[in-house]
């Protein structure tokens, strides 16, 4: 079987597994939608973004898109990679002629595909339920932010999976690293309400920069909506994750 066909076969299988996995269905697919609906129902009115008044729903659609991207890539990928490694599945696959890179690429591609689909669904709900316009003009910047964000958080997922030795610890640890950041990175709460110190802390991590890059696409009236500075920081985190993963990734079970 040729390379592209083999990769397609592996991706189809990984997508099937994603769609049948309860953790993926409820946490990755359903939870971001629930968050959007709840936040939109509780918080009404406007907030300030770069000195301009913006409807809170227009703030929450890109914010929850950032959460959806990170859930689909970083969290879901970490949980599945640790589970597959600890069950012996990765070791077994490593014993077949399937090139190792295909296992990695397929799993990352599935994360990116799911992230893109999640973003489309969240934007559609935002448009239909809350009248948040889909930013046609700045679509190139939005798509770039989604793809760079998804790819970078896949790399970070591969990196952290090397440091988690137990299957049961994967979901709690992955969530522990992102949940506090959602609160201070302008995902759950508008940045205008975040104290300076917490804002400065959030600024060190990639979640704020991804959320900013997405938000700007929804709030700029003109231009491509590309936030190069934010995307470069996100990509740098991704590159660091890839470097760590390439040096620490394990195919055999760590526990026992």
């Amino acid at each position, binding site marked *: *079987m040729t390379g592209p066909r*083999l990769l397609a*076969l*592996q991706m189809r*299988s990984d997508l*099937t*597994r994603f769609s*049948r*996995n309860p953790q993926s269905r409820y946490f990755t697919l359903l939870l971001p939608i629930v968050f959007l609906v709840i936040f939109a129902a509780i918080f009404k009115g406007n907030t300030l973004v770069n000195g301009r008044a913006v409807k809170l729903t227009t703030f929450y659609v890109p914010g929850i898109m950032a959460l959806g991207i990170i859930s689909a890539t970083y969290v879901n990928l970490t949980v599945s990679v640790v589970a*597959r490694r600890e*069950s*012996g*599945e990765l*070791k*077994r696959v*490593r*014993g*077949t*002629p*399937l*090139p190792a890179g295909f296992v990695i690429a397929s799993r990352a591609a599935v994360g990116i595909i799911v992230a893109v689909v999640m973003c489309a669904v969240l934007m559609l709900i935002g448009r239909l339920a809350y009248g948040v316009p889909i930013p046609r003009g700045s679509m190139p910047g939005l798509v770039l932010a989604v793809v760079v964000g998804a790819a970078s958080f896949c790399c970070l997922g591969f990196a952290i999976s090397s440091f988690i030795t137990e299957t049961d610890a994967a979901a709690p640890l992955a969530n522990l690293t992102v949940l506090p950041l959602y609160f201070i990175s302008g995902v759950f709460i508008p940045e205008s309400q975040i104290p300076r110190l917490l804002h400065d802390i959030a600024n060190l991590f990639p979640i704020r920069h991804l959320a900013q890059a997405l938000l700007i696409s929804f709030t700029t009236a003109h231009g491509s909506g590309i936030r190069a500075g934010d995307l470069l920081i996100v990509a740098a985190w991704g590159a660091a994750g890839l470097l760590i993963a390439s040096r620490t990734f394990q195919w*055999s079970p760590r526990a026992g």
Partner: protein
Amino acid sequence: MSDVVIRVRGLRKSYADREVVRGIDFEVRAGEILAFLGPNGAGKTTTVEILEGYRTRNGGEVRVLGEDPAGADGHWRGRIGLVLQSCAMPPELTVHELVGLYAGYYPHPRPVGETIDLVGLSDQRDARTSGLSGGQQRRLDVALALIGDPELVFLDEPTTGFDPSARHHAWEVIANLRALGKTIFLTTHYMDEAQALADRVAVIADGRIVAEGTPDTLGGRDHAASDVAFTLPPGHRLGELPAELVARAALRGEVVHLTTGEPARVLHVLTGWALDRGLDLHDLTVGRPTLEDVYLRLTEPPGPSP
């Protein structure tokens, strides 16, 4: 063209400063089933994982299908099949989906349906793997090892945790593999498994091969003294036996074992003694030491010297 499939010469492996494989040699020939036996911690798993290409070695020469597993590529992996010691199956896929996926990994796979039939999972074809019993999961594992139509199959404790009927079914599957001309490297804890399946047996203990041979000749089993065993009739003591028998007797529980190079003579004396007293010896047996007896003797940790 040599028909040696696995050749190991002076293999050594250390972890930190502990040497777990201390220079071992053996060969496996094409079409043969070699049972590789040894207690936990003897270096067995380390050796198998070096042969499978999962671990590197510190010394010695290893050739598996003519290549060094340490530097083996996808082409080499396509010629071997693996059943690892423990491997959970992807719970989200069905038997047919999983075997079909693995078929795609190999250049010349066996037919998917036929391979599922071979391991006896035809009725579970469309079942999710999470719904299979332990024995069925293990058989699925064997199907994945065979789907690439390998020349050499590693089976690492393939029947551990099976009930007796599942084990006998698995043995049939393995015997079928032999009929297909596969070379099989089998590790097991069960001596009856080695006896039933293996052409040759190699025993590793404390990092060294301590014996090698056919199951019937291992450790000089075929030349060993016979063992005459029976339960001491109630109300009788070992000391009441004729002195000639007492001298060669060992009592294990209620069972007397007489070790002898002349089983006919010993039986004659013993049965004469029993008939004179109107006794019968209901569980009287005569046999050579079992493979298990030989194995236990070979792998016994060295006791304190007298």
